[in-house]
């Protein structure tokens, strides 16, 4: 969370009046004050349930990353993400 605090403070100095946005891998309660969003994991295991529990802990802007290397599952992940707070493509395969 200090990282988020630092990022936001630097942003405010460099670009006052502009909105700040960042995506983080880990979530600490309170980071949502510093425009920190997060994604729910590098694997294929995101679910509505995960996004919802994070919402209830205060982190409203989570992303179920669209990560599948399989085209059909990826299509379904795109469709799934239309109705999630953040829609984002991400993949770790080489």
């Amino acid at each position, binding site marked *: 969370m200090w990282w988020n605090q630092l990022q936001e403070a630097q942003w405010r100095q460099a670009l006052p*009046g*502009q*909105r700040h946005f960042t995506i983080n891998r880990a979530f600490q309660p309170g980071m949502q004050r510093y425009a920190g969003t997060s994604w729910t994991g590098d694997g*294929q*295991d*995101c*679910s*509505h*349930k995960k*996004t*919802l529990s994070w*919402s*209830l802990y205060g982190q*409203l*802007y*989570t992303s*179920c990353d*669209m990560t*599948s*290397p399989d*085209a*059909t*599952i*990826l*299509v*379904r*992940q*795109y*469709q*799934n*993400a*239309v*109705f*999630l*707070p953040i*829609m984002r*493509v991400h993949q770790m*395969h080489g």
Partner: protein
Amino acid sequence: MPRFPYLWGGPEHQVAFRKALNMRYHFLPHIYSLAHQAHTALRPLAIPAFYEFPDDPLGDSTYMFGSTILPAALAADGFRTPDENTTVVNLPANETWFAFNSTRAVSGGWTETRHDVPLDEMVVYIRAGAILCLQRDVVQYSDAIGGVLEVHVYAGHDGRFTLVEDDGATTKYLSGDTRSTEFLWSDASSKLSWSVTGAFSGDANSYTSLQAIVFRANATAPAVASVRSIGKGGSITF
């Protein structure tokens, strides 16, 4: 394997990817307004159904987006379904649910499972009484939104929704530089009305005119009406 998803799969995948992306843009004004609610009322965009249906036994395992949108769970969701063309959705009881963008409606209180859902189809249900604020014209990037606002009304109950607009880039919204258009649907009189308040006077990405579409349960077709200028307020009786 190439790094760009739009090179994967076959032509039917490309159609499906594009449809999903366009759907997201279609919903942008609505999602943006939900985000403002999150800021002012600390209301999450994604909620368990028990927020809206506290007595429904499946309320804690049913996902909603905003208070009126109920997307089905897909296989890639990791939640419940066994394969990627099967969807499962719990429809809360004591409510009428419309298939998005259609007059097809069912009563709630059961779990719908569908197999072999076509690749480009998204299973999404909308609650009776919902008002959705959508970007009508297809755009390629969020800097091009604005112009005609498409307002969906799913009849059956009275409804209300406030569209919130701001400059999209600065932090001026923190000092109230926003514009709110409150839409009200009176089901008994079939009337959609709206009134506009707020300091933000609009820019190139604001909505200036309106097309309203009213879906009545199982009617043969929706009712459509347009208004050239949203102005400071107005109404349409259907």
